[in-house]
């Protein structure tokens, strides 16, 4: 297969930046396929070429298959990278890309259909003999029928988008009283986020850990796994903090789960980067779903294994990535990722939108920042509230936690509120520190909006002094000195 000279990116935000960087390193040009709302973003400024594929609403741009294919063709690309979310797990899109004579950077449409559709995936898992959580995955989507199935499984029951991922279109039903409202709501969210209202039901495990395995199928079809990640810290089924490797697995469990992950991916003829998600409770694991795409939390795997999954995806699509059987991969140290959401933690996490002011990510060893927006860009209400990811690596889990807390404290985001104070609280929580958290960690300990600690007298005086300096005013309650770089330099000498 010929090498790509230009790749189209059917995505936005930080993942678009991540893909552009991988392409740049490989000497490949990029075409960003963006909506009207995303002109003020880093990816827009970094891409070799940009093509507007539609207005802000996702159905008219990022979820529009034809607009994306046409954009890639018009932009002179030979391949499309779908990132994650949007059309990344849409088999019809992968097929449309192929039909247009382009390469879809990801698994084949057949693999996406058999593994990515959560209902078909469970059939495949049964074939492979993988343990499953009890549930309903039928075609009958009538709400009344779904409610009766939920009753049969027994509450609590979880309702999920069949075509989805990332927590959208996913609800926890605790009793029959709220079943109808939540199922209908999940169907609407599924339609809006993934273009299909199909949902399925599953028994909710009440003290499970979320463990997933990164799998990778090379150009020859050989599948290996790149170890595990733990993502038990979730709110409304949306991951907040992820880490590699999981603090919860014994060597034996890790081996068995890794083998199971490879077995199902091999059965689904998987090519490229994918993730097999499991729930682990009382030493038993159950297949949750397979995500047929790059995962938001892929950097933690990259950090502990020293690999570049995005470049591997591109090379695999070019037909030139083959696993080296002599290379034995062993995870080194510990890596944690925190998702930075534009939301107000003191108001229960309502989205915060607007013009981004100053943004500072403190540099240092073992720190990595993936972000899609910079000062002067606008955070709009149209898309996912995740504006950045902070990733750290250190020798051990306790040191990685310690580093992450420091890094978050030193990070500056002005203009929109972020969940940083909330993340710091979570990272400091006893259960997280011990590594015993389950998927109910957030609802158990952080169901209330974060309490804002009152400002100290010093904080207030600093604010007053800062305001005077910003306005170029004179002295007042606090004595101020000019913000000359030399002033701060000489002081420490």
């Amino acid at each position: 297969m010929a090498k790509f000279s230009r790749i189209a990116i059917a995505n936005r935000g930080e993942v678009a930046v991540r893909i552009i960087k991988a392409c740049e390193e490989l000497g490949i040009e990029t075409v960003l396929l963006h909506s009207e709302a995303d002109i003020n973003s880093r990816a827009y400024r970094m891409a070799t070429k940009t093509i507007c594929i539609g207005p802000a609403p996702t159905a008219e741009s990022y979820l529009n298959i034809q607009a994306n294919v046409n954009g890639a063709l018009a932009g002179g690309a030979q391949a499309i990278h779908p990132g994650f979310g949007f059309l990344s797990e849409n088999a019809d899109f992968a097929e449309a890309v192929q039909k247009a004579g382009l390469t879809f950077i990801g698994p084949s449409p057949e693999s996406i259909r058999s593994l990515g559709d959560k209902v078909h995936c469970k059939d495949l898992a049964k074939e492979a003999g993988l343990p499953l959580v009890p549930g309903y995955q039928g075609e009958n989507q009538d709400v009344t029928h779904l409610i009766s199935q939920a009753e049969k499984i027994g509450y609590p029951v979880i309702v999920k988008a069949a075509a989805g991922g990332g927590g959208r279109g996913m609800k926890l039903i605790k009793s029959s009283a709220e079943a109808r409202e939540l199922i209908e709501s999940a169907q609407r969210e599924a339609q809006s986020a993934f273009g299909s209202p199909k949902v399925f039901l599953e028994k909710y495990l009440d003290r499970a850990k979320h463990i997933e395995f990164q799998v990778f199928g090379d150009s020859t079809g050989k599948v290996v796994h790149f170890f595990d990640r733990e993502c038990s810290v979730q709110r409304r089924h949306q991951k907040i903090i992820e880490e590699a490797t999981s603090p919860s697995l014994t060597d034996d469990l890790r081996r068995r789960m890794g083998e199971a992950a490879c077995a199902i991916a091999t059965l689904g003829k998987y090519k490229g980067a994918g993730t097999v998600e499991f729930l682990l409770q009382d030493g038993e694991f159950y297949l949750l779903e397979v995500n047929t795409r790059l995962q938001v939390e892929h950097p933690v795997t990259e950090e502990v294994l020293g690999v570049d999954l995005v470049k591997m995806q591109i090379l695999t699509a070019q037909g030139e990535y083959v696993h080296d059987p002599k290379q034995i991969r062993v995870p080194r140290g510990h890596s944690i990722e925190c998702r930075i959401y534009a939301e107000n933690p003191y108001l229960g996490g309502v989205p915060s939108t607007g013009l981004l002011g100053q943004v500072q990510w403190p540099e240092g060893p073992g720190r990595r920042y993936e972000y899609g927006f910079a000062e002067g860009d606008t955070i709009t209400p149209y898309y996912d509230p995740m504006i950045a990811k902070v990733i750290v690596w250190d020798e051990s889990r306790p040191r990685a936690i310690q580093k992450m807390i420091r890094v978050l404290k030193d990070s500056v985001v002005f203009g929109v509120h972020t969940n940083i104070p909330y993340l710091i609280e979570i990272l400091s929580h006893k259960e997280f520190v011990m590594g015993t958290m389950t998927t109910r960690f957030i609802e158990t300990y952080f169901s209330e909006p974060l309490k804002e600690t009152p400002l100290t007298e010093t904080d207030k005086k600093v604010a007053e002094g800062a305001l005077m300096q910003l306005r170029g005013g004179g002295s007042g309650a606090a004595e101020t000195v000019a913000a000359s770089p030399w002033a701060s330099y000489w002081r420490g000498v």
Partner: protein
Amino acid sequence: MEVTVRIDGVDHKAQAQLIKGTLWVHHNGRTFTMETGAGRKSRKKAGGGSSDQIIAPMPGKVTKILLSPGTQVSAGQAVLVMEAMKMEYTLKAEIDGVIGSVNCTVGEQVALGKSLVQIKKA
């Protein structure tokens, strides 16, 4: 920008920026805001309706209106559904009463702080 403020002879370093009348400060590992009175009017507190009305807690789209004017409503009951950043948010009544007026339509993009529903107290 970086500022240094001297308090009782001790220098405190901070980052600060004025954005539309709000002062943003990062000091001692923490970001906080202060309204300075300048710029736009301080907006209504987001996050909940003030007793007799339901206020949009964020900018977003109204996806479902569950109760129409004249309907009885009790505190905690869901009144409408909004979508913002691809997530659904159910907005609930804070008091018992009767739905007075509904000031939005399904599909409408509403601004933060907009009064969406008026409730007549029981």
